[in-house]
């Protein structure tokens, strides 16, 4: 086992999971105090601007998840190793959660500030398209009957679908948009007050820990599901499945049991 693999194994082991969970809870508690008590309300938007401390981290983690899907998909296409496919699936699922959360939190912010829950603004529209792309990725994973085909097809979509991520980020710069321009990830210094920036950075760090925890748990669940399905396939065929291939369909265990 290589050094990087050993480190990854340690991080995704049960002990690593517990450490990440503790750090994530501590981070979220600190972030809640900073964003709800310490940071001042916005001079123009008032209290509702506090939604920024959950909306922005959710958007950042959607970007991070889909970038992980892109890297894992490209790595799978180059190496055909199932661990990359598993990582891509885990990151896509968590990314869809955070992308959906970004849209819902944006709508909650938009209603009092813009006067509407939703508008066909470039940033909102491209984000909705992003969500649809990765929902299609998850749907594709459930449709393909062969594990190799499932991994290949979803890896191709994971690479191609990533094109929308920079479009979402740059949409407020390229097109006239109701959504505010970037205040932190922009050329030049951030255009945000120091105390608000500190609260935002702590929130981003805390939510990133939550993301890392969710990914490790999802990877473990993925391995358990693969093992259960592999054993079901062995029971059906009477042969041990030791070739490291993923089994074809998730429902096999139920059927195998009823056949037995």
């Amino acid at each position, binding site marked *: 086992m290589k050094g990087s*693999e050993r480190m*990854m*194994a340690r991080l*995704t*082991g*049960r002990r690593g999971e517990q450490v990440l969970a503790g750090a994530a809870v501590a981070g979220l508690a600190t972030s*809640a105090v900073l964003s*709800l008590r310490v940071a001042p309300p916005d001079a123009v938007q*008032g*209290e*509702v601007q*506090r*939604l920024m401390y*959950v*909306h922005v981290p*959710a958007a950042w983690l959607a970007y991070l998840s889909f970038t992980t899907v892109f890297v894992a998909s490209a790595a799978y296409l180059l190496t055909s190793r199932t*661990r990359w496919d598993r990582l891509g699936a885990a990151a896509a699922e*968590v990314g869809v*959660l955070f992308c*959906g*959360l970004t849209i*819902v*939190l944006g709508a*909650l*912010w938009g*209603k*009092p500030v813009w006067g509407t829950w939703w508008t066909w603004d470039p940033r909102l529209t491209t984000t909705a398209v992003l969500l649809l792309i990765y929902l299609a990725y998850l749907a594709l994973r459930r449709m393909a009957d062969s594990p190799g085909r499932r991994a290949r097809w979803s890896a191709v979509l994971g690479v191609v679908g990533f094109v929308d991520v920079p479009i979402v980020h740059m949409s407020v710069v390229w097109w006239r948009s109701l959504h505010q321009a970037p205040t932190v990830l922009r050329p030049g210094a951030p255009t945000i007050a120091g105390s608000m920036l500190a609260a935002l950075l702590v929130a981003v760090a805390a939510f990133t820990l*939550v993301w890392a925890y*969710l990914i490790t*748990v*999802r*990877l*473990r*669940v993925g*391995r*358990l*599901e693969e*093992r*259960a399905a592999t*054993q*079901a396939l*062995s*029971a059906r065929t009477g042969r041990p499945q030791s070739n490291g291939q993923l089994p074809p369909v998730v429902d096999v*265990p*139920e059927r*195998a*049991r009823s056949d037995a």
Partner: protein
Amino acid sequence: MPDLGYVAAGYLTTAAALGGYLLRLRHRARRARRQATALTGRPARPARP
């Protein structure tokens, strides 16, 4: 709805989404372990990377 209502709704939605997803993952892990145990007759080992 007052501004703080939107803020509360946002934070509660976030907590519910993250908590709900974690519960879902726990349920999936339990189901996979149960299926493995039913097939082999042995309790499933914890998954390793």
